[in-house]
């Protein structure tokens, strides 16, 4: 494989794009310049850092270090889900719910894929395990955060409807059913759309990466299909479990709607 190596000068050139964007934002008073520059800086530091970490990890393929890495990734994703909630669950539930749902979906599917489909020896070979887990986490994270955000904000807005259904003798499941369905749907639409247009409009990121790295396009396509299916399965499983657990948490043991278990971001 002959890869064109990038120099720091190349990256510096590309970063000009960010500065142009920041300048435009300043000029148009969008108030985004600071955020763009910080996000750009974070990308640089985080990716270079993970590059170093992975280099070390690939050299020493211990399952202990791998688990630690996976755990850190999970917590970071859990925190990100929390950040994206307009109204989050108070206490441990805020972080716990999304993280648990992500754990259930991403870890299960990644492990099954590594054991049954990729079948490396050892199965946890970091070179495969980490990128796949990362891709799973990143995508299920989107589905889960959209689904949960939708669930809590709709429950908040439609409180009167939910409670009117309760007083008519509906169970909590019936009273929240429409909202639950809509939340799960909105969490899953992005990945369904991504599968529908894959290859037509753009090449998915991983396939692009493999082709740039010199892999055969057809091999890259097969990998991409595998990943798409896994992401879709993971997003579905993760979104459904998060929305289900979340909707359960919205009601107490007397099936009362407990919006006091949510807190809005402003009040934290």
């Amino acid at each position, binding site marked *: 494989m002959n890869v064109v190596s990038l120099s720091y000068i190349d990256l510096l050139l590309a970063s000009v794009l960010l500065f142009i964007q920041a300048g435009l934002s300043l000029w148009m008073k969008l108030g985004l310049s600071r955020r763009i520059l910080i996000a750009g800086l974070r990308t640089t530091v985080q990716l270079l850092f993970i590059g170093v970490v992975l280099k070390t990890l690939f050299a020493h393929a211990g399952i202990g270090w791998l688990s630690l890495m996976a755990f850190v990734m999970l917590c970071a994703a859990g925190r990100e889900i929390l950040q994206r909630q307009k109204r989050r669950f108070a206490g441990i539930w805020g972080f716990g719910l999304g993280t648990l749902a992500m754990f259930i979906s991403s870890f299960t599917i990644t492990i099954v894929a590594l054991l049954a489909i990729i079948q490396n020896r050892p199965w946890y070979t970091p070179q495969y395990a980490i990128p796949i887990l990362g891709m799973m986490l990143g995508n299920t994270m989107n589905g889960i955060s959209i689904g949960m955000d939708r669930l809590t904000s709709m429950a908040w807005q439609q409180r009167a409807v939910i409670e009117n259904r309760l*007083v008519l*003798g509906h169970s909590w499941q019936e009273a929240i059913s429409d909202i639950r369905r809509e939340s799960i749907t909105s969490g899953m639409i992005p990945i369904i759309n991504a599968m529908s247009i894959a290859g037509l409009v753009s090449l998915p990121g991983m396939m692009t990466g493999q082709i740039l790295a010199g892999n055969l396009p057809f091999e890259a396509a097969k990998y991409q299909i595998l990943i798409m299916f896994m992401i879709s399965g993971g997003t579905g499983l993760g979104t459904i479990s998060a929305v289900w657990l979340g909707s359960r948490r919205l009601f107490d043991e007397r099936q009362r709607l407990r919006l006091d278990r949510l807190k809005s971001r402003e009040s934290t």
Partner: protein
Amino acid sequence: MDLFTARNLIYKNYGPLSLTLRGSQSIGLTGPSGSGKTLFLRVLSDLDPYEGEIKLDNKSIISYFPPDWRKNVSLLPAESQWWHDTIGHHYAISCQQWLEKVGFAADVMNWQVSRLSTGEKQRLALVRLLCNKPQVLLLDEPTANLDKKNVHIVEELLHEYRKKNNAGLLWVSHDMDQLKQNTEMIYNMSDGKLEVML
């Protein structure tokens, strides 16, 4: 025997409150806005947490499956909610007789919710609630959005329902004349306390 009792209820910073309803008894509840009348009704139909003891037919609220409790001790909210497109989808069973009583023809079931006025919604919501055959009705300003003629119709219907089904009524209103006509006893709520007014 008492149909419904609430003893030493405490919720938020209200209470302790106690109230007893006999079968086919109607009690009025009035008081300034924000005195906790609506919250009181919500607690009685188990929509909000509270401390204290509530009983129906001498059985504790705890022994009821929550949806069954709410079917029996039913709250009519001040503003009714509709979540399907057509009226009919909101009714579990047909309630022809009561629909006619409040002035609707049978084809109302096919109507679009968006077509309804607030007053029509309020009358249809009452019928929807009565379909469940509640033993205790908690009415939060049930005639607030109605014209004179329909106020009368609703009062008649509630009277008839109460007598026929031996049901208890707790009627929240700001209209003292209405309460005097429709209830046997009136409580005033202020500062989170109940006092007998009439």
